[in-house]
Each structure stands twice: as structure tokens, then as C-alpha cells.
């Protein structure tokens, strides 16, 4: 794998995470539990779309095959997507959505923090802009996880169920492969495996405040970030997201 191929894969991972999770959040449009949450969820989805435009835009340039961010977002099939499985998991109830958000935001904020010092100036620049937004996402999702974990008996039970359901998707964010090794060697991005301790400490702090128990089992589902095996959920998401572009390929929107 050339350095350029590895960089392309890395950028797809970043952009597909925000694309797919942003899409999931946008599914909440108009049906959140309170008006303030409608606004906040739309805001998070909007930030993610913006970040996707940067990451996938740069990915297309690196690939050098004349694909822009839209082309990459709307014309790849599931096996070419490089998001972690966590991002494509269904919304479930609001608790599952907000737990998924927190588990991702915690990783995202730590990871982007490292990218600020990336040897690739474009990566550092995108991270700079994104990390401000993500700091706010994390503050909100952590706050909501705490409130609902330590709320009523029912909200506590639902948040615990959400954590139990999603925790097996956490481990994939910390796997490393050849792409990560190349990025680490080039000083472009950290090896994700080195961030786990910091992540665990952050998650433990928030879950303690939320009175939620972190599952003992550290088994990790994987296959998203290398595209080897996504969940069944991704195909349905793509059906909806890509439909217009696929049905009218010669149209300009």
C-alpha cells in the first residue's frame, strides 16, 4: 500500500464516520423529545455534514480520480465505506441515539485533538475546525447521558440497555492496521490503539456520574473501518441516502 493509498483510506474513514453518523442523526428531524433537542440534533448533523465535505473533498483530491465529496458520498456501495460500525447502528430510542453519540464523540474529540499536530497541514486544518464543534458535541452528549442515566428509574434502565447494546462497537475505534501504521509513521495521525486508555478514563468518569455500569466484556465487532463486513443496517441507509443520485445519474442538483 502506497502512502497515498493509505492517506486516501484514512480520509475515507474520517469522512465516512461523519457522513454516516450525521445521516443517522438527521433521521431525527422533527421528531425529537423536546424542541431544544430537535434543534441540537439538527445542529450536530449539520456540523457532521460540513466535516464530511472537508474530509471527503480532500480524500477525492488525494485519490486523484476526479471524485468530489458528493461523488464519494452518493456513488460508492457499502463495501467501499470505511466508517466504524458504531456510526451506522440504528437510532433506536433517544437513549440509544445519545449513547451512540457520546461513545463516538469521546473518541472523536480525543482523536481530533491529536490531529491538530498532524504533519499534513490539510488534516491539521480540518481537525482545527472540527475539534471546536466536537468539543461542544461531547459536552452535550455527555451531559445528556449523565442526566438520563441519573434521571428516573426508566431513563436509567434505557440508558443502561443502550450502553450494553452499543459497547461491543467501541473496540473497533481503537484497532490498528497497515493504514494506521503508515499514518502514524508519517506523523499524519496517531495509532488509534494508543488512545484507548485516555478514552476509557473519560468514559468511566461520565458513566460513574451517570450511575451506569460499563460492561465487562470487551469483545469488539469490527469490519467497518476496513470495509470487510459492515452491518446489515448500512445498505438500507445507503438506499435512502443515495437514491436520487443513483436514479438520476446525469442530473445536477
Amino acid at each position, binding site marked *: 500500500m502506497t502512502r497515498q493509498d493509505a492517506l486516501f483510506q484514512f480520509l475515507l474513514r474520517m469522512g465516512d464516520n461523519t457522513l454516516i453518523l450525521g445521516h443517522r442523526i438527521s433521521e431525527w428531524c422533527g421528531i425529537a423529545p423536546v*424542541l431544544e433537542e430537535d434543534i441540537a440534533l439538527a445542529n450536530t448533523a449539520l456540523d457532521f455534514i460540513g466535516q464530511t465535505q472537508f474530509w471527503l473533498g480532500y480524500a477525492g483530491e488525494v485519490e486523484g480520480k476526479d471524485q468530489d465529496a458528493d461523488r464519494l458520498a452518493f456513488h460508492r456501495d457499502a463495501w467501499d465505506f470505511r466508517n466504524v460500525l458504531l456510526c451506522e447502528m440504528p437510532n433506536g430510542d433517544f437513549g440509544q441515539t445519545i449513547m451512540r453519540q457520546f461513545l463516538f464523540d469521546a473518541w472523536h474529540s480525543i482523536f481530533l485533538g491529536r490531529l491538530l499536530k498532524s504533519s499534513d497541514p490539510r488534516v491539521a486544518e480540518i481537525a482545527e475546525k472540527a475539534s471546536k464543534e466536537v468539543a461542544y458535541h461531547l459536552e452535550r452528549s455527555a451531559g445528556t447521558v449523565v442526566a*438520563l442515566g441519573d434521571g*428516573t428509574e426508566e431513563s436509567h434502565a434505557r440508558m443502561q440497555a443502550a450502553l450494553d447494546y452499543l459497547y461491543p462497537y467501541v473496540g473497533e475505534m481503537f484497532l490498528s492496521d497497515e493504514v494506521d501504521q503508515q499514518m502514524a509513521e508519517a506523523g499524519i495521525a496517531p495509532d488509534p490503539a494508543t488512545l484507548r486508555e485516555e478514552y476509557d478514563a473519560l468514559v468511566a468518569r461520565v458513566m460513574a456520574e451517570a450511575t451506569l455500569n460499563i460492561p465487562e466484556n470487551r469483545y469488539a465487532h469490527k469490519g467497518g473501518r476496513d470495509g470487510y463486513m459492515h452491518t446489515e443496517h448500512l445498505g438500507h441507509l445507503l438506499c435512502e441516502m443515495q437514491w436520487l443520485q443513483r436514479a438520476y445519474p446525469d442530473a445536477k442538483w
Partner: protein
Amino acid sequence: MYAQMIKTAGTGVKDRDEMSEEERKFQDRIDAGEKIEPKDWMPDDYRATLIRQIGQHAHSEIVGTLPEGNWVTRAPTLERKAILLAKVQDEAGHGLYLYCAAETLGISRDELTEDLLSGKMKYSSIFNYPTLNWADIGAVGWLVDGAAIMNQVPLQRTSFGPYSRAMIRICKEESFHQRQGYDAIRACAEGTPAQKKMAQDAMNRFWYPALMMFGPSDTDSVHSAQSMAWKIKINTNDELRQKFVDQTVPQAEYLGLTIPDPNLKWNEERGHYDFSQPDWSEFFNVIKGNGPCNVDRMAARNKAWDDGEWVREGMLAHARKKAAAKVAAE
């Protein structure tokens, strides 16, 4: 308009000698162009009418996010998706300002929400129509936000201070929505034959419902006369509808779209377009609950509210625990 068929409380405009001393002073302030603030004395009927009007306006903003949300997950580009999401976010924000404005009149957001969900309060008829193709999203921004602006721009001068200030904030964003909607339908109208078909199909379905937004003619309505005397209604429905038609026809022509009205033509003498009235029996049916989407819209709002109950209660319980812990620590 997002507030339609608002029943003005009371029996119509009173003569000065029928008014109490307080009512006379109140009317004088309005006539002098002063703003009425929440703590000021106001007639009960003025308060009741405003609650209905602002409440319905707020509900329309909220229910209106459903037909647009219908296309968020199918938007054709990242840019269009961002624009649509930002618009829907603005509309939710408008709902929020308006509920806050209504709260200054002594009714809570939760009470207003209950009245919407029980069907006691209405929202604009327009949101009971479906969005069926992507160009509908353009048509909604262009025609629906366009019609809403016609009413909301004059309402910036309404007599009730919080409502007027909410309108000033909202109008800025609405005109943005209208331009973006026009741009989205323009891209379709200038696009492939299939896209042109989408744009024309959207035009065919949204034209008359957009005209209905202004409500039936109210030139002879005693209720409207009272609302106008109170400056919570500034123009008649027919005036606003004419203004909307006059503004929109050249825009449709520019796009090469046909307005589905064989009687539409410029009237040199009047200096306005002549046009056909929408089918008012259809309008009354939609208001009564028989529009194509009434049942689904209400079911969606009710489901969102019911599904969210545990979240609202959880948040409240946590806030109480925190407050109690704070008191205990002091």
C-alpha cells in the same frame, strides 16, 4: 400564512362610547403605534386572540418540519442536505421564539402543545399536503415560505411587543429560506427532462394550497376588523393573496414553469394579475381534518411527544436531584 381562520375573541370593533376607560386608553396606545408589553393592561379578548394566533403560528412552524424532514435523508447532495437541515432547524427555532412570545401572555408551551396534540388548536392547512418529489422541497421554500413572508413582514409592526420582535427575527430567516427554495427548484427547472417534470409536478400541486394559506376572503368579516383595529392583523387576506400572486408569477415565468391556472393573466387596468380562487371546499375539508396528511401529521407529532416522555421526565428528575444536592450542600 401560518395563522389562518383565527377566531377573534369578542363581538367585533366597539364604538368609543361602548368602551371602558381602560379600553379607550388601550386603543389610543395602539392607534399611536405604541407597543403593548406583557405587563401592560390589555383586554381579555385581545389576549385570547393573540394566544390563538401566536400559538397556531408556532404549531405551524413545528408541524411544518415534518414535510420537509421527509426529504432530509434523501437530499441529493451534501450541500442541499445541509441547506435543508439548516432550514428545518430555523423553523424549530421559530416555533421556540413564538412559544416564548405566547408564554408572556400566560399560557405555557406544554399547554399549547397539549392543545395541538388533542386537535383543539390547528396549524396551517399547507402542512397537510405531502412532499412527493425533491422539487417539492424547492417549492415549499419558494411558495410556502414566500406566502408566509407576505403576512409576516407586515406583522413586524404588530401591536404586541414580543410578537413583533419574534417576527423581526423570523422574517430575516424566512426570506433566506425563500431564496434557497427558489434556487433548489431552479436547479430542477433548468435540469434534465426528469428534473423539469419534478419541478412542474411540484408547481401543479403546491400552487393552490399556497393560495389557500392566506385564508378565505375576510374583507367583510367583523372579526378581522377587530383584529385589524388591534393591529394583530395588518392586511386583509385578499390583499396579501394578490400581492403573493403578483410577486410569484414573474418568478415562475423565469423558471419556465406553468402555473396551473388558465385564467391567470395580467390586468392592465388593475395593475395586478387576475387569477382563479382555490377550491375553498377543499380548504375547509383540510381544516376539518380531511387533508391528505392531517392524520399522519398528528400521529407523527403525538408519537414524538409520547416517545419522548421518558426523556423529558428523566431530564426533569435529574435537574431536581441536582438542585436538591445543591441546597443540601449550602
